[in-house]
């Protein structure tokens, strides 16, 4: 057998039946092996799109996403997506072809130092020097991608290694990633803080669902009733019927969530990392709070905010261990009042479509287990504010890197991971154009992905900042010469419809959901609509600007 065939056999050993990629010279032996393989390859139209599909597949399913690219430009096109997976802790294995070792280091055609490029954007990376190392290296890649805090791993395979003969029997693979070291030594100290707290808040990040600790979280919040807030990646972690959930915190968080965190005396951080979009001015963040920090990554403890008590390891074991009795009924009443006082309002005047209301309607109309893949910008924050999710695996949003162009290919990956579920991408007119070529992937595989383009003919979030903080100098944010998005979709055999008025929304959503195939809904909104509330740069989270104050 050739090295190229061995690659696919090892992938199959790891349960991989779906890969995303794009062929090219240095990876042709692997593509030749794919020709007769039972692994299904989905041809993307740009390697960045293929890797985002692998991320969408991984995030929607919890499995490892696999993508492939050739050397040189194929590999460099993966870099943005790998960085995205790195910052959002997504288990991805990227396989790149490399020029033959005989010419490596000679600036050969389509040669670039992929191992060198990978250092800053992967959890780990390998260059396979011999076919004898190939199976073990790929096994290691799958282990590393999933172990502890997940992340992307790149395996660079020179063409001569792909073409080399090997007759070795495949070794049985071990599932070593379940071996997580957990220290409960500080559990008693955590329980003491929770029992003594008068104003506790649970601050929930993506680490909870990635640890498969959703049930333990609901039990913790039931045993220790307290207000909870989530990060962008943690959305959907708290059960929809939990009355003490206050929404997302941070720059565009709810006022209730931000005020509760600013006023709390104990912040229980569960699988989150005090990102600057969460904390605002760090010196003024949760100024009265002691912190309990639970994470699987030791490097996150005391990185940004000092924790009085830290617990490292498996969230599933830690949450029951820190559960205790707490009585904070006055605080719960106060936070309920905040939630009531600062609830969303949808009574936007005029006939034009108000995106928050549209997204609320979309959220209420979509089937319960639908996946929503967002792009990046104003629409992304509106989705986070106005849609509800029953699981973080149903809300795919580029959190750490904030990568425009994420949504459409991530939705493709999600649809292939969960063909039985409705998959919607909510995108903006700026973001959509960043990976619009993936419409061809939807066309080729007849993927019934629903595409909602929220179009304000602007790079809306940048425009909003220019309006508020750069004296209304709208530098390079005008997109009023956008293409006709419905005609563009039609070019890929995807039907669509354009709406401009509120009274068209209900029927348009119905038409989109009842159409059996892919569908594009082009939603024109007012370019003056902005995302509120907003914590301005350098401010504390209680200093939110609201629409009324703007």
């Amino acid at each position: 057998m050739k090295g190229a065939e061995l690659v696919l056999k090892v992938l199959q050993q790891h349960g991989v039946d779906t890969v995303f990629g794009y062929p090219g010279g240095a990876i042709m032996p692997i593509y030749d092996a794919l020709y007769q393989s039972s692994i299904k390859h989905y041809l993307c139209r740009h390697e960045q799109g293929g890797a985002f599909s692998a991320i969408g597949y991984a995030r929607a399913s919890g499995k490892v996403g696999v993508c492939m690219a050739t050397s040189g430009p194929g590999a460099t096109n993966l870099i943005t997506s790998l960085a995205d997976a790195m910052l959002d802790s997504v288990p991805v294995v990227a396989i790149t072809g490399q020029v033959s070792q005989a010419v490596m280091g000679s600036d050969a055609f389509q040669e670039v130092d992929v191992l060198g490029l990978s250092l800053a954007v992967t959890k780990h990376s390998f260059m396979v020097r011999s076919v004898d190392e190939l199976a073990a290296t790929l096994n290691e890649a799958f282990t590393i991608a999933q172990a502890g805090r997940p992340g992307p791993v790149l395996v660079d395979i020179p063409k001569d290694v792909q073409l080399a003969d090997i007759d070795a029997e495949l070794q049985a693979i071990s599932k070593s990633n379940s071996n997580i070291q957990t220290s409960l030594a500080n559990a008693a100290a955590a329980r003491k803080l929770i029992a003594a707290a008068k104003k506790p808040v649970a601050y929930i990040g993506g680490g909870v669902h990635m640890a498969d600790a959703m049930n333990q979280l609901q039990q913790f919040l039931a045993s220790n009733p307290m207000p909870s807030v989530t990060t962008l990646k943690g959305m959907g972690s708290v059960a929809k019927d939990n009355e003490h959930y206050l929404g997302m915190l941070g720059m565009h968080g709810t006022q209730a969530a931000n005020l509760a965190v600013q006023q709390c005396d104990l912040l229980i951080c569960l699988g989150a990392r005090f990102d600057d979009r969460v904390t605002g001015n760090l010196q003024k963040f949760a100024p009265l709070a002691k912190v309990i920090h639970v994470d699987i990554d030791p490097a996150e403890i005391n990185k940004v905010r000092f924790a009085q008590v830290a617990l490292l390891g498996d969230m599933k074991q830690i949450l029951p261990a820190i559960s205790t009795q707490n009585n904070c009924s006055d605080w719960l009443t106060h936070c309920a009042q905040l939630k009531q006082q600062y609830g969303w309002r949808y009574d936007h005047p005029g006939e034009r479509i108000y995106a928050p209301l549209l997204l609320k309607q979309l959220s209420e109309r979509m089937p319960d287990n639908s996946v929503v893949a967002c792009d990046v910008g104003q629409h992304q924050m509106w989705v986070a504010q106005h849609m509800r999710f029953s699981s973080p695996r149903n809300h795919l949003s580029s959190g750490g890197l904030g990568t425009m162009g994420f949504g459409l290919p991530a939705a493709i990956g999600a649809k292939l991971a969960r063909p039985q579920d409705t998959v919607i991408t909510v995108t903006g007119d700026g973001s959509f154009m960043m990976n619009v070529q993936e419409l061809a992937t939807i066309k080729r595989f007849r993927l019934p992905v629903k595409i909602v383009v929220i179009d304000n003919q602007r790079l809306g979030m940048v425009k909003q900042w220019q309006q508020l903080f750069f004296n209304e100098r709208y530098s390079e944010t005008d997109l009023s010469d956008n293409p006709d998005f419905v005609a563009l979709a039609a070019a890929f055999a995807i039907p669509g419809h354009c709406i401009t008025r509120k009274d068209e929304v209900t029927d348009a959503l119905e038409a989109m959901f009842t159409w059996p195939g892919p569908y594009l809904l082009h939603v024109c909104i007012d370019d003056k609509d902005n995302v509120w509330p907003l914590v301005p740069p350098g401010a504390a989270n209680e200093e939110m600007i609201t629409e009324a104050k703007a």
Partner: protein
Amino acid sequence: MNHVLNITANNTPAVVERLLQVTRYRGYQLTGLEMKPRSDRSVAITLSVSGDKPIHLLTSQLHKLYDVVQLELAGSELAVLSA
């Protein structure tokens, strides 16, 4: 502040680059580097660095590197950071 880190790592082709990339990105300056390959396919590396931030912000990131087997901060009780 100056710090000396004694590191045992897998002797892989990119291991020194990985250490230096993390050191630079996390905001520390390299002031010295020594390395000695061992017979067991590991390498002993001594990194001297300076930086204004607390050194645990660097040691915790270096320790996360897959190729780093052991990391000690010379003259300190801060040793290996793990669960």
